[in-house]
């Protein structure tokens, strides 16, 4: 039975929100749409933080609520903690605005 404390909002999401403390080494079952996915947890995830429910490539879109919440800045294997250290935003990026990749800013 899927763990009700690991919440995937929409079936197209590639992250789950943990509403309990999750520990490295746990094997968890996560409901993603109609399917229950088994994920090996690779690192501790605090209450409220996110965990990858599938392998995510560098540059790939992180999807929650069925919508982009940013892009992976490194490969993120399933079971990894997903947060500011491995995801970047596409909005308010004044640091990129003058550069060649500025067109990515407003996608």
């Amino acid at each position: 039975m899927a763990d009700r404390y690991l919440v995937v909002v929409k079936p197209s999401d590639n992250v789950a929100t943990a509403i309990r403390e999750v520990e490295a080494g746990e094997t968890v079952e996560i409901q993603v749409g109609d399917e229950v996915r088994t994920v090996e947890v690779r690192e501790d995830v605090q209450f409220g933080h996110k965990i990858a429910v599938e392998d995510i490539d560098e540059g790939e879109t992180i999807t929650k609520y069925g919508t982009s919440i940013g892009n992976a800045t490194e490969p993120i294997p399933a079971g990894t903690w997903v947060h500011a250290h491995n995801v970047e935003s596409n909005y308010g990026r004044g640091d990129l605005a003058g550069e060649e990749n500025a067109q990515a800013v407003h996608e």
Partner: protein
Amino acid sequence: MSDTFLGYERPDGSVGIRNHVVVVSTAPYANDTVKRTADIVENTIPITHPLGRCQTKPDVFQTYRTLLGYATHPNVYGAVVVAHAGEIVDGDELAADIADTGRPSDSVNIHAEQGVMNALDRAVDSAREMVQDASRMRREEHPLGELTFGINCATSDTTSGLCQHHATARAVWKLIDEYDGRGVFAETPEFFGGEEELADRAVSEAVHDEILERVEHWNDRLLATGYDVRGAQPTPDNMDGGLTTIEEKSLGALVKSGEGPIQDIVDYGERIPETPGMYIMDTPGHGAESVTGIGAGGAQFMVISTGQGHTLSNAVMPTIKVTGNPGSAERVPEQTDVDVSEALVGDETLDWAGEQLWDEIVEVVNGKLTGSEAMGESQFAIHRIGPST
């Protein structure tokens, strides 16, 4: 269930849930006289700020609109305006505009009175008389549809979009759909990432386009800084709570507005139109500034949907704080009015959460003090657009 509440009718036809007298400063140099007046006279609220002088016109208009919005708020009986000297935000003009709504108003000028002591004497006398007159009013029955429901979030985290924002959405749409009331939410930079879906809810093409234009304008302002906005949006406390990017924060934040149609998007501090339905006010995500703007817009009360817990509040417009994070009731216990975390980590439903919140709203609009009111907590911060000059 009753479709009325007990409120105070104003001469302009609006209905308040409180019966305050405000003492309003027009410039920093009148702030101390305003605070001293409010210290002396019971049941008065001081409105002070660092603006009103040496501002460019867009800021002058915004400051004036916001101060007038408070002085003529449905929850306000009357207002004493205190000015320092001749200011671009003019005290006499403000007092006259307040009087135009039928409310008692007075204008006190420190220079004209020849000093702070004389000005204080007059302001205290005027405020004292208003408070005594206001105390003679009694609450009377009015339709719930007279209410405008303000919505804001505060120290959001990942629980916000999963739980408490659903409760807020259910409560505001109950007021709109069942009682023909109004709702207003704000914080335009917190639409980033969800703006297309939001704009699609607009009642017209013009409103649709304006939502997208205003979102783009905010993003352009942030790009012009040359820095990544992360740290300011999302904030460090948002990130502690698990929110990774402004997009994630926005998509959660928009949950509190529900899914129904958007009537219009109004300027910061602008009065919300009378037509029932949901409105957007164009404000920053800075809570003290967005809440101040919504208060000026005339919302009689506000639900602040918080993740990690917050003291964010407003003395004129009572703020009801709801959380779904079981930890936040422990962090800011005295100001957590409604804890619906059982709908997130327990066995209750989101419909139950919405009902819990609605029941508390009914209590507060009929006179129950919120935690913030009882604690005397309030912040007032008018958003500024451009430079001082």
